[in-house]
């Protein structure tokens, strides 16, 4: 289980780069990110090396920030790798709210971030099927 930050952004020029600057000025590293956008606004989701510091500095700069628990799943990097993981979750009746992949891709596996409706159940089911997941410590070590 890993903490993910989500930040509310208006759809206007320069908003994303301003926020990225706030993080880089505090030496915070982005490990994964994804943006969900609508015509009106965007939601930036990201995993950083120090979530507590990131939340603090973003709030200080007036951003609306949420912390959520997500799963970082190690998906075999071959055809059918992702569908195998999705099948495990579907069979256990776990809904995937959204997913996105990591910026970096270590070894022969892809790292994919899953937001699911039932985190404990998803963890249990994935573990029982030998699907590996990374913790925050694992992520930082792999850097």
């Amino acid at each position, binding site marked *: 289980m890993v903490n*993910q930050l*989500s930040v*509310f*952004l*208006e759809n206007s020029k320069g*908003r994303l780069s301003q926020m990225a600057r706030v993080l880089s000025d505090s030496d915070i590293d982005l490990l994964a990110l994804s943006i*969900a956008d*609508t015509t*009106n*606004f965007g*939601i930036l*989701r990201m995993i950083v090396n120090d979530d507590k510091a990131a939340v603090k500095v973003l709030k200080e700069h*007036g*951003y*609306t*920030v*949420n912390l*959520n628990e997500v799963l970082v799943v190690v998906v075999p990097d071959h055809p059918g790798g992702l569908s195998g993981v999705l099948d495990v979750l579907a069979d256990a009746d776990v809904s995937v*709210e*959204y997913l996105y992949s990591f910026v970096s891709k270590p070894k022969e596996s892809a790292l994919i971030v899953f*937001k699911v409706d039932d985190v404990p159940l998803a963890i249990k089911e994935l573990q029982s099927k030998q699907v590996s997941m990374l913790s925050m410590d694992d992520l930082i070590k792999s850097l």
Partner: protein
Amino acid sequence: MIWNKTYECMDRDKMTSLQSERLVKLVNYSYENVPYYKKKMDDIGIKPSDIKGIEDLNKLPFTVKDDLRDNYPYDAFAVPIGDIVRIHASSGTTGKPTVVGYTRNDIDTWSELMARTFAASGVTKDSIVQIAYGYGLFTGGLGAHYGAEKIGASVIPISGGNTKKQITVLQDFGSHAIACTPSYALFLSEVLEEMGIDPRKDLNLKYGIFGAEPWSHEMRAQIEQKLGIRATDIYGLSEIIGPGVATECEIQDGLHITEDHFVPEIINPETGDVLSEGSEGELVFTTLTKEGIPVIRYRTRDITSLNYKKCECGRTAVRMKKVMGRSDDMLIIRGVNVFPTQIESVLVSITEIEPHYLLVVDRVNNLDTLEIWVEMSDNLFSDEVRRVEQVRAKIKDEVQSLLGLTAKIKLVEPKTIERSTGKAKRVLDKRKI
């Protein structure tokens, strides 16, 4: 045409004594029948017998919209509900509407006053009149309806909206006059143009009776030019009676107040002092003949001035200038009265905190638009688009059900809405009225 020369052209001295006589009766009537007037007068030590004529009007306490709201729904009525034959309501400053009741005599008076309005606008018994004000709790539709019928005109009670149908009726029924909001009239003219219909050639339309929202002389010129009609400004508010409180004549230099029923005053909105003739200030009305819900010195919050000179049209009734402003923050959007506090109450109920918001009002293609900017906050935010969109939809739905207005909801980042020292800036009105 002047519908009622006796009253509309009455000698000023005679009018003053008629008003004095009626005021004395009204004050006694209100004191005896409406508990909150008795209390208000007792509180400042004024007895009905202290009011001997119109010159004593300023001794009486003011009535404000909140007084009527505090007496929701029926406590401001001076008669038992059995004597009330009609109930209308307008939006209040918060969730609850202001309720007004009419006796049979009140409805007769109202019809008479609206007959004066239509006559002054050019309508006669031979006219076909299309009433495109909304029928319902809003006083516009039924008020206009009864007045046009009283004249003997042929009334088409089409109510508001449904532009295509309005145009079909204008074409096929041959309407001579239309009563609606001025912005809707302008909108109709644009649609007619797009459809290739030339009002001068293809329609019988000659007169427009427009009110329920502020509009400029420039807008009048535009409506008159585009539709080829004479556009008459009318004024009223449901707390007093509805439309029929004042109307323009063919001279178009101020609106004649139906003074035999409503006495106007102009006050300084800050101090409450009565201002001299011609000064600009807040318009205050006292009803002289209302039975259902008599109102003493009601503060309309509309800013205007009064002119007692006899008009070229022959009427002696005092004229008020076209209303161009308010002394409070009420907005009129597509004819609907909107107080920022109403929207605030919707936002508070959804966000559970005091929200930062801005109402952006504009006029696009001659129709008013309302955009509500709401600052994002922790308890509205989610990492899921679906949930954030749900919040937006909920605000939109609740505003729609409270005000009957469709608003566009824009979620903005925290601290992006300007904070001003003192009173928060809640409204950005970009309309050039």
